[in-house]
């Protein structure tokens, strides 16, 4: 078991996240472990442990959370959040942590690829002529290849941020 170094604790990080809209209140966690007990990813790989993520957060171990790949193993299934007796929004919190990790360039290739596709097309899959022919063959209406206005909306936001 790895030792926790509390000198690395970032108390501003704890304060900021624990009072944030949508995800605040994680210091209510009393370590019962119901989250991990029901987690389907934990059963597949014990390295993934939602209780551990919440404890790391309560201890303010920002860099350890944001630099590792552990948060990216969450399947977003909401089992832990629904089961938590203290109402900690575990899945919503982990999702926000994924956002923070992305800003630190810790993001799986699959996730950043999807982001690029949306920026370029406004949807994940382009519906080309071939697809529309297949759709027409079974009587489904044709669809446009991409959505220009959605692309523009994302691009103006991203251009401003980068």
């Amino acid at each position: 078991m790895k030792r926790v170094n509390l000198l690395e604790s970032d108390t501003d990080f704890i304060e900021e996240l624990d009072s944030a809209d949508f995800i605040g209140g994680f210091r209510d966690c009393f370590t019962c472990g119901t989250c991990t007990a029901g987690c389907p990813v934990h059963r597949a790989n014990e390295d993934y442990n939602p209780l551990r993520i919440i404890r790391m957060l309560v201890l303010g171990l920002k860099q350890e959370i944001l630099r590792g790949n552990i948060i990216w193993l969450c399947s977003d299934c909401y089992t832990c959040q629904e089961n938590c007796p203290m109402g900690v929004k575990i899945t919503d919190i982990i999702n926000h942590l994924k956002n923070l990790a992305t800003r630190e360039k810790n993001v799986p290739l699959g996730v950043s690829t999807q982001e690029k596709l949306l920026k370029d097309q406004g949807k994940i899959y382009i519906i080309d002529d071939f697809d529309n022919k297949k759709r027409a063959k079974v009587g489904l209406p044709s669809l446009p290849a991409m959505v220009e206005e959605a692309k523009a909306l994302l691009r103006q936001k991203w251009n401003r941020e980068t």
Partner: protein
Amino acid sequence: MKYSLFLGCTIPARSRNYELSARAIALRLGLEFIDIEEFSCCGFPLEASDEIGAILLAARNLCLAEEKELDICALCSACASMLTKTAFHLNNNQNLREQINKELSKIGKEYKGTINVRHFARILLEDIGLERIKEEIKRDLKGLKVATHYGCHYLKPSYIYEGFDDPQYPLTLELILEAVGVTNIQYRRKKDCCGGPVLLSDEAIALTVAQEKLKYIKEAGTDCMNLVCPFCSLMFDANQKGIETKFESEFNIPVLYLPQIVGLAMGFGRKELGLNLNSVSTKELTAKLGI
């Protein structure tokens, strides 16, 4: 009853069997679907890396439906959840609403909060009703054993769904199946995830999660699975062969979308329901029913 049909990205490209069967039974039941070509991705795939970008995409889609004054019917559980969650937050958080509307104003749009979003299965249950569905039954599915996979975002996070169904003891999909005469099969880990979202970061874990579920379904003894989300279908149907190879096991479980099963009860044929487009063959299954 009129709705704007939200297909999302995956269904029109990869799950024409879901779209075909949903449109077929909707028409029969008197649900009118309006297609809005300008709909984009729902925003869900952006949630992990850019949550505000995700809300922006979702909000723009909501605005398009508002302009047409139509509630949204979503076929994909991830789309239903992303759009519902966005509406929930925009309706309950004034700061976020102002921030999002400021961005939307640049493309001449404003979120007003005038429409609702629901999953197709929920609309079948709430707006059509089981009695009306029963009136359309033309084929006896008695004895067909079906294992339902609820998946995650059809029911969760529960705070956005106003008490619809119970994520701890879900029942809604099986109520519809019971109404069309099939036998609902119970199995271990029924509420578990398909593993799909982990595919992007760790394929081995994703396939292990799906494999565990297929194993318990096989153990329970079933003719097919029933589900309502194209990501879940990807894991259990399209990836089933790969999972069998990887784990040296054999499942051979047909994976049907809810409207494909309901459509069978309503007397539709294989092609009308896109049953020829499923990855795991459904031929034996329909032969059993005399089709």
